[in-house]
């Protein structure tokens, strides 16, 4: 693959993602003010001192946005990685084992997928204590059902290949077959799927935070910032639109990269549509 073959949209996407990660990593260096520091009056307009204005408690919006990138990116990335690990491991195990293990896991997956993700998350979060690790785990487990479905389909295609059979005859264990035979040969479609899951995690986390069930204040997070500032909208104060726009821009960037990855691996099976 040559760098020149990457289309312009994908370049924009990659640069956008890198920019967001840059903000997250160097947040304490870039941000003009502290994350929870009250610096001025409520909802002040943008000025030289406060480039994007202030929020509903008088905190600098730009600084919150930069610190919010940390939380939003960390939680969605952690959730997608965890969801991927669970989904891939279980789906490959199902595809390699077959029989009752496959049946059991697949029917359980069907059952989990018969409840819309957001509704399931609401039911579960109503019981569980509010804490960031539980949030990541809930997001990951619910999302892993989608990874499972794709992973099983892809792995079944590979599991019947001669080299897998050869490895089985050689006497390799199940773990060897999953990680050394099947995984390397399915990386390409799975990479595109990972991008999709990441974009979905960003939107899902933002939605949960917006509903007041995700990241808890005073920690900054883009969805929560929309919630904090939404009451200003009716007075013509558009502070809520800035974090909302940041979420949208990041999701667009990830989707542009995914679109390119999907085109490269046109053999990918599995839908874009997600609930």
């Amino acid at each position, binding site marked *: 693959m040559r760098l020149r073959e990457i289309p312009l949209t994908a370049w924009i996407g990659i640069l956008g993602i890198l920019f967001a990660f840059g903000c997250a990593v160097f947040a304490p260096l870039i941000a003009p003010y502290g994350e929870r520091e009250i610096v001025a009056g409520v909802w002040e307009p943008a000025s030289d001192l406060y480039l994007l204005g202030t929020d509903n408690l008088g905190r600098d919006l730009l600084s919150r946005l930069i610190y919010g990138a940390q939380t939003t990116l960390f939680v969605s990335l952690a959730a997608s990685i965890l969801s991927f690990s669970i989904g891939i491991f279980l789906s490959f195990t199902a595809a390699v084992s077959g029989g009752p293990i496959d049946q059991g896991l697949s029917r359980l997956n069907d059952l989990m997928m018969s409840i*819309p993700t957001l509704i399931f998350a609401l039911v579960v979060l109503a019981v569980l204590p509010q804490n960031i690790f539980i949030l990541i785990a809930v997001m990951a487990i619910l999302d892993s059902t989608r990874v499972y479905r794709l992973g099983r389909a892809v792995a079944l295609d590979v599991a019947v290949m001669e080299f897998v059979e050869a490895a089985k005859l050689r006497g390799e264990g199940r773990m060897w077959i999953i990680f050394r035979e099947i995984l390397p040969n399915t990386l390409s479609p799975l990479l595109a799927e990972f991008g999709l899951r990441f974009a979905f995690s960003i939107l899902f986390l933002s939605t949960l935070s*917006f509903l007041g069930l995700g990241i808890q204040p005073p920690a900054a997070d883009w969805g929560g910032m929309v919630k904090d500032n939404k009451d200003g909208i009716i007075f013509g104060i558009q502070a809520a639109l800035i974090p*909302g726009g940041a979420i*949208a821009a990041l999701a667009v960037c990830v989707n542009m990269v995914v679109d390119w990855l999907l085109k490269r691996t046109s053999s990918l099976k599995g839908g874009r549509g997600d609930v």
Partner: protein
Amino acid sequence: MANPLARVRATRHRLKETHPLSVLIAERLGLSLLLLWAVSILIFAGVEALPGDFAETYLGQSATPQAIANIRADLGLDRPITTRYFEWLGGVVQGDFGNSWASGAPVTEQITKRLGNSLFLAFFAAAISVPLAVGLGMVAVHYRNRIPDRVINVLSLAAISLPEFFIGYILIVFFAVQMGVATFPSTVYDNMSWSERLAAIALPTATLVMVVLAHMMRMTRAAIISVMSSAYMETAELKGLGAFKAIVKHAAPNAIAPIVNVVALNLAYLVVGVVVVEVVFVYPGMGQYMVDAVTVRDMPVVQACGLIFAAVYILLNMVADIVAIVANPRLRHPR
């Protein structure tokens, strides 16, 4: 000496010979009921098994063991879970979802009113978005890989990436705050006139349409393209059939199933979109009811709403499958 099970099997086989379609549909119905029952267990028992306790959350700092025990006894939480599950299920089957822990009022009363509101909103969103999405999908296929298709593709990719609440607030800023032509918040009351009601739901409907439109259009486009590129369409063209006749006779019957499938899947997406949109627009529907209940951990309300949302979702998926079976004879005889 045939045992009952073998007799059932034989009857099923005979029925399948004479009425293959009805048997398949009946099987699909049965599967949905089974799924719904499993979901009810998951929502009730699965949730009870998780750590966390309403009584402790409710009392907060002032939770003494005695107070917690009292609340648990009041709510009947001290009885075994199987008893409570069957009582709950028995009530649900008769349309009784129990009483809210937070307010003590019957859940069913609230739900009937709010479900009506939510369905009202979802109905209008579906009535607008379905024809629009199918139409745009066809336009995109017609101009495939030319400028209109590319524009639609980029715009829909952007729309997929927008969170629902962001679309909602942009519409509010634009139409309600700056131009002043729409109403916000979109609260509806009992004694509202029909036209007032329609004016109130204009913005939430528009938001929902935008949320599902892009998904539905992209999937419709893919479905039509896969039908149009099949071998029999090429044959139709080669044997000199006109484009219109080929589409009516060959493409349409084969495209119905995938398109209906796409529509049903996205209507299911609408069900979820409703939750966020109702919160944004302060619309008194099921979604807002559920989110409010989740924040105060009012479990009977959460479980009732969760079950109803899941039921609607399962129902829509079932309709999609049944239409696919009816439209496509190949699915009736699985090999």
